């Protein structure tokens, strides 16, 4: 019998929707130390609960909500949780993080994780408290937006409940549907569709079970100091302008994906920039739960903006006119689709919120379809770059799986396989996950991060773009010598995503790993150092790779679409930038060897990740 460390409950809850049974299982202390929580612990749990080769929509496929030792602590930005499953978009591991009161309430149910398997006979709201697990009928919630559904559940159960729910995209099994909570989204990889496949409209949690801290007085002092630092210049960008301030920077450097990655500069970028929109549109700020940074910038639609095609049931966490804007939804629904009208981008973002669509994959898939239509590969005349009405209408069709939306609801990879005619070469994905707003030919360390990412093309699990934005490398010239730097960012993300801590805090730490080790020590009492955290990060990344191998991964998946390996950037500040298959392959091989895997990426010793 091992002792559960402070910060943990030492158990997880397993709910079977088919049998309507639930039970709890212990979490061994050594597993907690080796995988921490969040993304790391979720990977370990998913290994135990995923039969090889399972269909992500099969009843036996597991959906996880995973908390962490930092949740409900006084540490700023720690109200986070991981949603995990085998992704229906990538068929690979997916961990999608979110930040809201759901994390705090979920942990207070007395569990470090909630695992859901099975399939309900009819739409269901799962209601979890420390005393019970209930299966409430949710027929009246079906077809509501996630926000409206959440409001309805809280009206019925009380405000002490916090809710994760899906919109119509999740109900309709759109492969990039989100899990919404308090207006935030666990966005990537289609985990909302996994909920939909289980007829699970919502999960409501409440509780009063607290965990202890090993060094409570020191933790409070540390937390106060961290909160004070979080008000400082290191986070000013996020606080004053938000992530949308990347837009003009990326545009000037010629690294802003435009018109489905055909270009890397957008002539109308100024119209969409926060510096401009702050003048033309009312803007307010908000914060995640338990966060002192306040990075959310809510832009309000112009009063004279035309109405958008409506989702069947409207509902926005920020009111009818308020839309939270981040760089990723701005780039994906703006320049990537050739859209320069700010109100159209706001409408599109709002529609994604209401339907529960990942904005990156939605924008990426529609931009791909626009290029197909312009090339005559798809007979949808209105789909043209820059056509805002077509963007809004196509989002609605995707959410409802109607018309062309049924094809595009499966993402750019599957759509390109249906369309054929060479369209696979410019479908903007890795392993099925659409690329975020970092042009890989102009950020070639990031190109490696995209190619080897276990959940696909992803800027949250690899922060290698930070290396490209430095004097450590030549961002236009990939080198195998740079893979260590890419691995450092991937390892750092693995730890931050397991603690779970907001990456926007990165700049406040002099030594990030040392700071994270200190936080874990104060909460759990572990005598843990940076060397152990590095080992933990390696273990988590390798565990994810091992999971993927069991699900059918092959080395051929670790690559980029042909466009990026055969075409140079045509014009602008990065004109001529190119990346070859051989150069990328050399990076990948160096990466695999540095990870301790075989040259083509197979894990040599799986015993360490069990």
């Amino acid at each position, binding site marked *: 019998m091992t002792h559960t460390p402070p910060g943990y409950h030492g158990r997880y809850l397993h709910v079977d929707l088919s049998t309507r049974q639930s039970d709890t299982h212990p979490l061994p202390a050594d597993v907690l130390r080796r995988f921490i929580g969040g993304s790391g612990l979720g990977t370990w749990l998913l290994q135990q609960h995923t039969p090889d080769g399972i269909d992500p929509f099969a009843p036996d496929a597991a959906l996880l909500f995973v908390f962490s030792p930092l949740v409900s602590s006084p540490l700023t930005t720690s109200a986070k949780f991981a949603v995990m499953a085998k992704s229906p978009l990538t068929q690979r591991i997916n961990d999608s993080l979110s930040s809201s009161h759901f994390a705090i309430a979920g942990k207070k149910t007395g569990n470090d994780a909630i695992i859901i398997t099975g399939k309900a006979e009819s739409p269901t709201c799962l209601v979890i408290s420390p005393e019970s697990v209930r299966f409430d009928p949710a027929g009246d919630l079906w077809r509501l937006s996630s926000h409206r559904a959440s409001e309805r559940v809280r009206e019925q159960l009380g405000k002490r409940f916090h809710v994760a729910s899906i919109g119509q995209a999740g109900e309709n099994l759109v492969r990039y549907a989100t899990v919404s909570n308090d207006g935030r989204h666990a966005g990537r990889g289609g985990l909302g569709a996994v909920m939909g496949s289980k007829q699970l409209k919502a999960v409501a949690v409440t509780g009063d079970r607290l965990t202890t801290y090993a060094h409570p007085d020191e933790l409070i002092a540390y937390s106060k100091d961290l909160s004070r630092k979080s008000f400082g*210049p*290191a986070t*000013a*960008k996020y606080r*004053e*302008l938000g*992530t949308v*301030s*990347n837009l*003009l*920077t*990326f545009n*000037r*450097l*010629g690294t802003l994906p435009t018109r489905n990655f055909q270009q890397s500069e957008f002539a109308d970028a100024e119209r969409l920039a926060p*510096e401009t929109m702050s003048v033309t549109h009312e803007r307010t700020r908000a914060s995640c739960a338990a966060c002192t940074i306040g990075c959310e910038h809510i832009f309000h639609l112009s009063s004279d903006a035309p109405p958008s095609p409506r989702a069947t049931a409207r509902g926005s966490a920020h009111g009818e006119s308020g839309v939270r804007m*981040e*760089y*990723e939804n701005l*780039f994906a629904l703006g320049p990537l689709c050739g859209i320069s009208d700010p109100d159209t981008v706001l409408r599109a973002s709002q529609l994604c919120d209401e339907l529960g669509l990942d904005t990156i994959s939605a924008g990426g898939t529609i931009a791909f379809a626009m290029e197909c239509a312009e090339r005559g590969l798809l007979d949808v005349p209105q789909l043209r770059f820059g056509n805002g009405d077509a963007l809004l209408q196509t989002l609605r069709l995707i959410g409802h799986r109607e018309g062309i939306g049924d094809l595009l609801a499966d993402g750019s990879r599957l759509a390109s396989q249906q369309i054929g005619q060479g369209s696979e070469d410019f479908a903007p994905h890795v392993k099925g996950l659409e690329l*975020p*707003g*970092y042009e890989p030919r102009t950020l070639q360390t990031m190109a490696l991060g995209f190619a080897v990412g276990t959940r696909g093309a992803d*800027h949250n699990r690899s*922060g290698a*773009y*930070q290396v490209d*934005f*430095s*004097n450590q490398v030549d961002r*236009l010239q990939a080198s195998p010598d740079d893979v260590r730097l890419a691995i450092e960012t991937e390892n750092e993300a693995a730890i931050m995503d397991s603690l779970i801590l907001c*990456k*926007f805090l*990165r*700049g406040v730490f002099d030594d990030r790993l040392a700071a994270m080790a200190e936080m874990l020590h104060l909460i759990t009492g572990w005598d843990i150092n940076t060397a152990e955290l590095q080992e933990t990060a390696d273990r988590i990344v390798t565990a994810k790779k091992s999971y993927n191998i069991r699900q059918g991964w092959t080395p051929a998946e670790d690559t980029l679409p042909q466009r990026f390996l055969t075409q140079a950037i045509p014009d602008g*500040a*990065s004109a001529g930038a190119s990346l070859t298959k051989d150069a990328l392959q050399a990076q990948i091989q160096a990466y695999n060897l540095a990870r301790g895997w075989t040259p083509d990426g197979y894990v040599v010793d799986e015993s360490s990740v069990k």
Partner: protein
Amino acid sequence: MSITVEFFGIARQRAGVATIEIEADSLGAAFDELAGRLPQWSTACIDDGHLKSTFLANVNSRTFITNRSHRLNEGDHLLILAADVGG
């Protein structure tokens, strides 16, 4: 040497302008010139003659530079931008 300094994000907020033309033949000389022309920017962004860690300098959209002695050429564009480009 006449060069153009372009500010992005928070650096632009602190400068109060998007661009400015200055005379400078090195990165250090540019910072010194900006201290006189845009003192509020310098106070917010410069520490002991160097950019604070939350900012980056780039020449002509191509090369990131940190060394004060880095030579600047006639017509160069010096970009000042946020060091954290997470999205």
